[in-house]
Structures are given as structure tokens and as C-alpha cells.
């Protein structure tokens, strides 16, 4: 789960990492009230879960009372890479002489978190990683021991960062590690971490991602998780523990297993169309879950055909068939549905679906994709 900047900064603040004064505004009027409290100039920042907010016009400097509501309105009425803006962070504008990057992220192959420090932070950090890697230093953290100060010093020393900043850097890195460790984060970064004219460090922007598998033990996030931007359909899918991502094509898919779901999508494209969604019902899905999954797929008006591809292992094909059978009689649209059942109890499943001649059968995955694409084109024409 990705956190908004304002959420990340609340945690930063809790752990003693300096952040600018700020407030969260839901309306332009609130933005003006907050700005009056913290004093101009302020920066208005769209709280959307997307990179490149600045380039997309989601971050704007406001120097005085006269322009704040207009500017806030401008951002509220815009979309940042397709995401509507519901909240603005109104933040004191901070002067700075230098931008650092400081982050911790899990390295999959090492199975260790990595501490990353750069003396050239800011929006170009990925570019710098490719073109001037000498400005970025990183070191793995032993997850059992935790981040030690010597690791931070080693990076600061290599990057030639002024010694007066080592202690605050150690403190901020230690806070970041505590957050990473205690909140089950998979990524935390401060970018930029700026050097103010008073030679102190301050976090101007922050990003955090929390391990979805650990949310059950992270009470802080059970509450905020509903605030992360998702489509209503994706939220409904979440209720049934369905892994659903909406896409732009018109073949709705239901598959068991993420790998097979992606393979099914690839086959649809290879057969000449595009998937309308990614939908993994997981292992051992019950009939209820299958019913919910099919209902969600067919709610999408773009969908002109459905491809159901189940290879039973833990999942039992008869259970899937029962779930499908519960929706079919109530379907308002006459959509072509291709069903492919393989593996555990496939024969029983096929028997359950015999009463529904509108279902198309297929033996192989590629054949199923081709049939769905052909049927979809007939519907569309």
C-alpha cells in the first residue's frame, strides 16, 4: 500500500524527522485558512499517488493571499496522470542550498534492505542513477541488526558530505530505519532532503510503501488504507480479496494465479485484442468469490467478451463452476463467455456448466483466447 506524502510526513514527524509546517486542505477555502496560519509563501501539493506531480502541474508556489484560492482551484480541477485531486497539502515554502536523497528499499536478490544516499537529490535522481552513479552511494542493512550509524557515516564520507551534517543525517536515517522496520515498509524515501540556510536538514517530500501482507498487524494502516486512491470497482474487488486491476481493453478475464492471469492477457493480445482487466481469484476460491468476480467483470461496460481460464490445483473446478452458474441466469447483457476448466475436478465442473449452452468451450489457453477475441468482435460489430 502506497502512502500519500502527507501521511508519510506525519510518520516522519512522529519519529523526529524535521518537516515543513503544513496542513491538509479539502477545499480552496481551507487552503487559504491553512496558509494564513503558517504564513506565505506556501507550496500547494496535490495529494495523489503518482510520480511526476510537479511536471503535471500538481505542485505550485503561492506567494500571497490574493492568488491562493485560484491556484488551489486550478489544482483541484485538474487530473494528475488521470487521477483526480481530492486533497492539497498546504506547506510552508522552504529555502535550501542543497538537495539530498535518502531512502531505504528492500533488495529482492540480497533479501536485505538497502540504504541509499545521494548528495544530488531532487526530481532528477533516477537520471543521476544512470548518468552519474558516483553521486549515489548505497549499502545493505543487516535486517536482524538494524541500521548502524557507521553505515550512514560510510556513505556520507564517500559522498564528501559536510561533517556538520553527519549527526543530523545519522539521526534521520535512524528514524527512517525505525519507521521501515516497525511499519513493515518496503520502501521509504525522502527526496529531497534539503540543507536549509541554517545548515539543518529537512524532509521536503516523502514516499512510503507498506507491505500489503503485513497490514493485518499494522493498526495505523487499517484505518488509512481506505484513503488510498482506487476505483470503486477495485475497492469492491478488495472486499472479496480479489486481485483486480482495471485496464483499457474489452476482453474481461478471470484466472486463478497471477502468472497464469498475465499469460492469459498476453494470449488475448497475441490473438488480436486487449484485456479489460487483470483478475486473479487466487488459490482455492469459493463459489461466492467466483460469483463476485464475474459480477465485477461484467459491470465494466467496455467488456464485450469474457475469458475464464481456470487450471485447478488448490482451486477446484466444480466450485468455480457453481460460482459461475449462480450469475449466469441473472446476466442482463448477453455476453459471450469462454470457459476453460483444467485440472482438479475439471470434469465435474464441466458437467455443472452443461445447462448453459451460451458458454463457449476451449481446450487450450491459446484457443480460448482466440475464441474470445473472435466472439468479442462479433458482439462489437
Amino acid at each position, binding site marked *: 500500500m*502506497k502512502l500519500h506524502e502527507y501521511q508519510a510526513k506525519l510518520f516522519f514527524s512522529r519519529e523526529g524527522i524535521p518537516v515543513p509546517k503544513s496542513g491538509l486542505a479539502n477545499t480552496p477555502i481551507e487552503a487559504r485558512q491553512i496558509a494564513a496560519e503558517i504564513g506565505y509563501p506556501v507550496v500547494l501539493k496535490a495529494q495523489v*499517488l*503518482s*510520480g511526476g506531480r510537479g511536471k503535471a502541474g500538481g505542485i505550485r508556489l503561492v506567494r500571497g493571499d490574493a492568488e491562493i484560492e485560484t491556484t488551489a482551484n486550478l489544482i483541484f480541477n485538474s487530473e494528475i*496522470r488521470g487521477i483526480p485531486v481530492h486533497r492539497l497539502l498546504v506547506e510552508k515554502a522552504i529555502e535550501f542550498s542543497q538537495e539530498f536523497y535518502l*531512502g*531505504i*528499499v*528492500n*533488495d*529482492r*536478490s540480497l*533479501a*536485505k*534492505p*538497502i540504504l*541509499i544516499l545521494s548528495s544530488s537529490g531532487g526530481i532528477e*535522481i*533516477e537520471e543521476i*542513477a*544512470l548518468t552519474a552513479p558516483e553521486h*549515489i552511494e*548505497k549499502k545493505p542493512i543487516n*535486517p*536482524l541488526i538494524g541500521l548502524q550509524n557507521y553505515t550512514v557515516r560510510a556513505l556520507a564520507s564517500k559522498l564528501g558530505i559536510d561533517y556538520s551534517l553527519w549527526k543530523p543525517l545519522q539521526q534521520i536515517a535512524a528514524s527512517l530505519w525505525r519507521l521501515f522496520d516497525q511499519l*513493515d515498509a*518496503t*520502501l521509504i*524515501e525522502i527526496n529531497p532532503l534539503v540543507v536549509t540556510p541554517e545548515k539543518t536538514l529537512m524532509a521536503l517530500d516523502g*514516499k512510503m*510503501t507498506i*507491505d500489503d*501482507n*503485513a497490514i*493485518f*498487524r499494522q493498526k495505523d494502516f487499517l484505518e488509512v488504507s481506505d484513503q488510498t486512491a482506487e476505483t470503486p470497482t477495485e475497492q469492491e474487488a478488495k472486499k472479496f480479496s480479489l486481485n483486480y*486491476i482495471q485496464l483499457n481493453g474489452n476482453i474481461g478475464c478471470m484466472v*486463478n*494465479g*497471477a*502468472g*497464469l492471469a*498475465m*499469460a492469459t*492477457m*498476453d*494470449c488475448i493480445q*497475441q490473438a488480436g485484442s*486487449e484485456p479489460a482487466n487483470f483478475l486473479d481469484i487466487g488459490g482455492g476460491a469459493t463459489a461466492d468469490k467466483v460469483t463476485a468476480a464475474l459480477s465485477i467483470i461484467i459491470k465494466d461496460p467496455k467488456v464485450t467478451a469474457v475469458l475464464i481460464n481456470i*487450471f*485447478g*490445483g*488448490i*482451486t477446484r473446478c466444480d466450485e468455480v463452476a457453481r460460482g459461475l452458474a449462480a450469475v449466469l441466469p441473472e446476466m442482463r447483457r448477453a455476453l459471450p463467455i469462454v470457459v476453460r476448466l*483444467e*485440472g*482438479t475436478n475439471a470434469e465435474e465442473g464441466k458437467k455443472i456448466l452443461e445447462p448453459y449452452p451460451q458458454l463457449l468451450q476451449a481446450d*487450450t*489457453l*491459446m484457443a480460448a483466447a482466440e475464441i474470445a477475441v473472435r466472439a468479442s468482435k462479433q458482439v462489437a460489430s
Partner: protein
Amino acid sequence: MTILLNENARILVQGITGREGLYHSERMYAYAKNVVAGTSPGHGGEWVLDYKVPVFDTVRDAKESTQADTSVIFVPAFHAADAIMESIEAEIGLIVCISEGIPIKDMLKVRALLEHSESRLIGPNSPGILTPGKAKAGIIPGSIALPGKVGVVSRSGTLTYEVVQALKKAGVGVSTCVGIGGDPIVGTSFVECLDLFESDPHTDQIVLIGEIGGNEEELAADFILNHVTKPVYAYIAGRTAPENRRMGHAGAIIEGKTGSARSKIESLLRAGVQLFSYPEEIAEIIRI
């Protein structure tokens, strides 16, 4: 010998009295009769599978009584790391974790423990290991594979079944099929499995089934280029998946350009691997 698992394995099922644990223990027992014990806290002293398999409170007790050497874990996600650690402490040689949804932080601990242990972990979020005709540790349906000389290694579950079944339909058998698990942090990597297949005299060719994300496939490609002499075929799922809206730069800094289907496919092609573009296509391109 095939890799990791053969007919001499003595299988212990952790969580044997649970719904999934019991169901798949029956399947494993039916496949090779080598499920020798189960654990379930508080059920020590009971029996399952018609009094054929004794249940113990702890892995150590089970191992001491039955000489189990392979553990298959079917417990809920929030108990799974505990279950893995229990098997590591009891010095179980091969641990296969079927459970999915284990927090990454727990897996970091498990990996650190494994480093200084004698145990090998497959998974978590793995369908397990199937050595056709010999033994099965996990949930891969036994019926989809013939014994043979093709080694299969995969990050996926059901996608693997498609490929293995396609091989069977073409009359091609499998030496061992290993699902290394779909999670970001797993116990055994593609590279380690490739290494095992390369040294296994009963494996002639290797099929690798990868997907987008991480850099496991790129590392596998490097390894194949330098260390694998046997023919390798590969499939990468997710060519059409939308790039996950990336947030934060740390991933980019660590992984550079790896992770995309293109990066993986290009690396594998450079390593001389033959790619196939849909699961059943393996049957058309594999040469026996």
C-alpha cells in the same frame, strides 16, 4: 537422482489437520506413500489418513520419531514464518512453504536464518515440487506430468501446470518441476535451481517460467550464459501487463532497467535461451 526430491523423501506436513493440509496430504500420500508425519499444535498423539500418519505437537518431535527430512508447510500466512523457523531449528533439510501472504519482514528474517543453517527453503507462495513418478511435496497435481528428462522451474503456480500439461500432451516427461514461489523474497532462486538441473544427470533440458518484476530472470540469464550447457527454454508472463505505476525512485536506483518483460526476454535471448510466447507453444518448440 532428480533434484531436491526423490522417492526416498520422508515428508512431514506442518498444519496437517487443517483443511488444505489434510486434503493435500492425502494427495501426496496417494502419489508416493511417503508422508511419514504431520504436526498440529495440541494434536500431538493423534493420527490422520486412516491411522497411517501420526501427528505431533512439534517438528522436532516429529523428526525424532519418524526421521522426516522434508517438510511441507500449510499454515496461515501469519504463522508461516514461525513454521519455517521451527523446521530450520529442527534441522529439516528441505522445507517447502505453500502458504502465501507472509510479510516481507518475516521473510528477511527467515532468509538470514537460512544463510547459517543446513536447510533449503522452497517458497513461500510455492506450489511445491513434483518429481513425476517418484514423489510430490506440495500441491502440483500429480496427473499433469509424465516422468522424463525435462527440468521445469517457475515462479508461478497454475501457469506452470499449463506448461507441464502441454509437455505431457506432447508426450514429453519431466525430471523435476520446482515452483520457487511468487513472492519478492523466496528461499531458493532460479539460479540455484538451474545449477541443480545442470548437474543432474537425469535432466537433459530445462524450461524456465518467469514473469515481470524483480531481476531473477536477468540473473538467471547471466547464469545460463556462463554456467549452463543444457538447452534452456523460457516463457515470460506479463508482456502486456501495464507497468505498475512506480512510486519512489529507490526501485529504479537499485534495479536500474531490469524488471520489465522486455529486459528479461532480451537477457534470456542473449544467453541463447529459446523463448516461447504462449504456454502450450513449449510442446511445439521443444526437441526430444
